[in-house]
């Protein structure tokens, strides 16, 4: 394994680990606040129990997100000093703002978790609202940086290849900024809400504490369901930005090698880089041109338009994209189904077929997030700043990067296993919750 690949793998693993906890840190506080609000409005014990339970889960998962996020902020320099040396002044603004948002999140989470008996009811609920809002703000700020890496603006290149005439405010408003931030926020609510719904659906199937889990399921669906249904539309917005700004990434997503008018949409298939063709795909004629440019005859630039060393690993990107779309669509369909059942005023928690579907698609949102992150990051390769800086030029000169990769892999595998066991035990405790 080359040092560059080791560094990329370590960054991917660190991000892949953190992103799950980041999404939970964004959506879970909203859910616990909703539960507390319902309790204060209705006085029903089940909502109080639920708020306390969800707060407990939030406490554990937020802490893991906080420390794994710290790792990432250091890894920017440990692995990509060449990137940070040049890009730091451009992208530091959103990171700094994120720092303050994270401060508010941590401060008011402390107040929320430990302040049930110490602050008044309004103050407590307000603390939770601040946690939820600043979590969302943090996500937006961080994604602004990634959007800039995909669609860099706000500078000129000097003779030495560095960034000159920098404008950090323009950099924050890069062409992909809004679409990527929206996509990430919706992903957070959809993945977390539907995963929590899946857990409670599974507990209902086992017949545990129906009053408690029924209310939990409904609240989780309120957060996750609409986001899951809206996400495909947000994905369409994102794809059109990619089509306009990152043609090579779009071609990799679709396994499109030739530049053609009226390009097809490919479902499945395997892009073969050596033969420069994508085989075994189900092709919908003109579908790609239609979706990406809203014009069935639009020209789509193929991968062959750029030299092989400027192309990402096409198969990885194409497969990840298919996974993201497939998992996200399944999630949206089940969310629609649940919405339909609720709209017909039938009891969600007694519809066993729906509960089974919800339990099955529970992890889909997080899997789709991982796949989507692979799409945007691997799809940008070999660039770290699209078109301006190659990842190979950003990596640290320190040799032996396999060692930190192995170390952090072991650390995160261990941590992941403990978290899963802990969350499972927190869930199991609720089977005897007051009904």
């Amino acid at each position, binding site marked *: 394994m080359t040092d560059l690949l080791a560094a990329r793998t370590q960054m991917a693993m660190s991000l892949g680990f953190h992103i799950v906890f980041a999404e939970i840190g964004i959506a879970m506080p909203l859910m616990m606040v909703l539960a507390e609000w319902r309790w204060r409005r209705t006085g029903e014990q089940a909502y109080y129990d639920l708020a306390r339970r969800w707060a*407990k889960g939030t*406490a*554990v998962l*937020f*802490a*893991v997100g*906080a*420390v794994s*996020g*710290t790792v990432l*902020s*250091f890894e*920017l*320099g*440990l692995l990509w*000093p*060449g990137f*940070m*040396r*040049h*890009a*730091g*002044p*451009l992208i*530091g*603004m959103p*990171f*700094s*703002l*994120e*720092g*303050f948002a*994270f*401060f*508010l999140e*941590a*401060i*008011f989470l*402390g*107040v929320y*978790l*430990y*302040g049930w008996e*110490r602050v008044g009811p309004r103050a407590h609920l307000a603390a939770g609202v601040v946690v939820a809002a600043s979590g969302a703000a943090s996500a937006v700020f961080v994604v602004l940086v990634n959007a800039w890496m995909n669609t860099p603006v706000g500078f000129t290149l000097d003779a030495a290849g560095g960034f000159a005439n*920098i404008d*950090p405010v323009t950099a924050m408003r890069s062409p992909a900024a809004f679409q990527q931030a929206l996509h990430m926020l919706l992903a957070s609510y959809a993945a977390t809400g539907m995963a929590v719904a899946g857990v409670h659906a599974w507990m209902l199937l086992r017949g545990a504490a129906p009053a408690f889990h029924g209310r939990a399921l409904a609240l989780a669906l309120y957060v996750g369901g609409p986001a899951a249904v809206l996400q495909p539309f947000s994905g369409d917005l994102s794809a059109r930005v990619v089509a306009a700004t990152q043609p090579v990434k779009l071609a990799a997503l679709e396994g499109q090698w030739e530049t053609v008018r009226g390009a097809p949409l490919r479902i499945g298939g395997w892009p073969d880089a050596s033969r420069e063709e994508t085989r075994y795909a189900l092709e919908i004629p003109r579908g790609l041109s239609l979706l990406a440019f809203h014009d069935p005859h639009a020209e789509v630039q193929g991968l062959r338009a750029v030299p092989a060393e400027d192309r990402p690993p096409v198969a990885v990107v194409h497969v990840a994209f298919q996974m993201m779309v497939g998992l996200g669509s399944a999630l949206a369909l089940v969310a629609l189904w649940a919405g339909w059942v609720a709209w017909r005023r039938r009891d969600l928690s007694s519809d066993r077929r729906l509960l089974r579907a919800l339990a099955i698609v529970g992890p889909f949102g997080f899997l789709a997030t991982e796949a989507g992150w692979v799409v945007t990051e691997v799809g940008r390769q070999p660039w770290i700043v699209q078109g301006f800086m190659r990842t190979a030029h950003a990596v*640290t*000169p*320190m*040799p*032996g990067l396999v060692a*930190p990769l192995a*170390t*952090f892999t072991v*650390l995160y595998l261990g*941590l992941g296993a*403990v978290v899963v066991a*802990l969350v499972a*035990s*927190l869930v199991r405790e609720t089977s005897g919750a007051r009904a």
Partner: protein
Amino acid sequence: MNAGVGLPELLAAIVVLALNAYVLTGGADFGGGVWDLLARGPRRAAQRTLIASQIGPIWEANHVWLILVVVLLFTAFPAAFAALGIVLHIPLSLMLIGIVLRGAAFVFRSYGARDDATQQRWGRVFAMASVVTPVLLGVIVGSIASGAAGAAADRLASARGGSFTSLYVAPWLSPFPLAMGALALAMFAFLAAVYLALATDDAALREDFRRRALGAAAAIFVAAFGGLAVAHIMVPQVSGALIGSGSAGFQVMTALAAIAALWAVWTRRWQTARIAAALQVSLILWGWVLVQYPFVVPPTLTIRATAAPRTTLELLLGALVGGALILFPSLAYLFRTFAAAKR
């Protein structure tokens, strides 16, 4: 030195202020973990309970100061951040592992299974990580202060290069940085002991932490003068600057704060002790900063040479002022909420 004091210097000072805040808050949380590891005697369990109750609501907020330091460093002084990320890769990675294990183990102990075996296991991980992390932080600072990290970065930049050990290991795995690691550990433990004594109403528990504070104060004395002796032999430019006439007044202030802190602990004036201890530790930190001014990473990377373009610095200052207006009232609310509760 006469380049004047302008925006870059102001932002460098804010970076140090953020680090100072981290040392006084997050540092003390690590110090709490040290006393968890060293919990002894009949009130062992009560000591641990007090530590956990004091850290619980605030450690994550306190931890954000470190993130702020990192973010400010790479925004305002990107070349310095890049240089340190390269040559201090190993101790920084080890410190991160400590940070991850400390935080994770703390919540696993707080929210995990209540059986003794599980509690003890995570308690042990929490406490060990609380000892290792401050040492590494001190080692990193010591490596920067000694100029060894900067010299290695210079050799890399000039393509003179060197062996893996000379570039990535020797700059931090040497006596002076290790002495600074010991000093950081002693300072954090001292702060924690003083805060904990103030935080309890139990007289016996308070005496436990008074003894610990006195022990930690002695450890600071040994580590500081041991570090100075090591510096005198290995990095004379650092010891020379520390005891030179230029900083003599500053060192006298530090000594006075140390004596005041010791006196206040000795005479059980806990409010005074907290202020004096925080002052002492802060002055030690600023003593380092003063010695290496105007360098961010001595011997070559100065504040001016590594500073980001003016546009960035201006925007950053604006964001910091705006952020502070929200941050400080929020922090005050957090600390007031949990300080009022214990009385």
